[in-house]
């Protein structure tokens, strides 16, 4: 048998394996491993980014909800304030109106009283003057009073009331 062929084949094949390993296998296998590592790293990174984005979105949503609630609160407070202010103004106006009414009433009463008193005096003076004119003598007030009282007394007697 051709033992030489066996030897030759084995040596050639061995050299081929070594050469292929050195020239192609190692660099390509390394590249494949690098790629695998890179892909898994990229996937991890993408996963992390996705999580971050989700968290951020959640935060934003929560903030939005908060601001919504805040807005509602602010509007409510403004409404309340407005209502309160309206009530205050109304109360103040009512009070003022009442005070004014009361003052006016008092003024009117005073004026009526004054007018009545004035009228009384005037009537007294007038009647005195008329009486003076009629009697033709000067009557002073005390005399007149006596006179009037006397007249009234007599009037009573005449009626026989005693």
């Amino acid at each position: 048998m051709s033992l030489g062929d066996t030897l030759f084949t084995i040596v050639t094949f061995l050299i081929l394996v070594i050469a292929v390993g050195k020239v192609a296998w190692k660099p390509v296998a390394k590249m494949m491993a690098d790629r695998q590592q890179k892909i898994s790293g990229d996937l991890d990174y993408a996963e992390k980014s996705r999580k971050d984005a989700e968290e951020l979105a959640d935060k934003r949503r929560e903030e939005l909800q908060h601001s919504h609630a805040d807005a509602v609160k602010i509007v409510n407070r403004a409404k309340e304030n407005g209502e309160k202010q309206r009530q205050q103004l109304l109360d103040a106006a009512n009070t003022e109106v009442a005070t004014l009414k009361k003052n006016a009433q008092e003024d009117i009463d005073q004026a009526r009283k004054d007018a009545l008193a004035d009228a009384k005096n005037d009537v007294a003076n007038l009647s005195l003057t008329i009486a003076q004119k009629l009697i033709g003598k000067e009557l002073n007030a005390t005399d007149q009073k006596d006179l009037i009282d006397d007249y009234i007394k007599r009037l009573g007697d005449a009626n026989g009331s005693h």
Partner: protein
Amino acid sequence: MNEKYPQFTFYGLDFNLTNDLGVLVSAILVFLLVFWLSRNLKMRPGGKQNVLEWIMDFTNGIVKSAIPGSERYTFNLFAFTLFLFIFIANQLGLFIELDIGKDTWFRSPTASPVITMTLALAVLVLSHYFGVVFRGFKGYLKGYASPLPLLLPINLLEEFTNFITLSLRLYGNIFAGEVLVLLIRQWAFSGGAINFVSATVAEIAWQGFSVFIGSIQAYVFVTLGMVYTSNKVLPE
């Protein structure tokens, strides 16, 4: 193919130059192919690199299906080179056949039983070697008496049948293919235009089919080699 080859004796070793030439050309072609495919490697692989990585994944898959454990990384490069070498060697003789005078100077090296036996021997010797490496000498010896000590003779016999079937299957397929290629060629030149045309069509069909056979045989050789290796390397 005249069954006569240029012989050459050197220090008492017989060399069949046809075989040696075929082996050398196959090895050089494999190297050039892989060298060309592996130029300009990139993180994002382009056309050539994709082809190379696909072949690597393919042979890695063959190894992995036989040896699922981490031991398989030892055999990846070997399986890759073996597959490409046998594949190219199988195809060579389909297209190039060189006869000078009475001697055949060039044909598929795998059409010679010596070459296929050498390759099978390389695979089996490696399987025994790594059986000792991975399981220890005791574990390796125990493998012969498993699953029953009674089966020791059968296990020993199996080593030889493995060797014979692995090498002769490849040899038989490729040799038969080449014989048929030559027979169809003789038919083509047996006279008459009809013979020539129909033989040409038949030759094309047979060559196409032989490409398929050569690919399958390369795959089968590597797969079975890895299965025999896994029997030695993996603990029972």
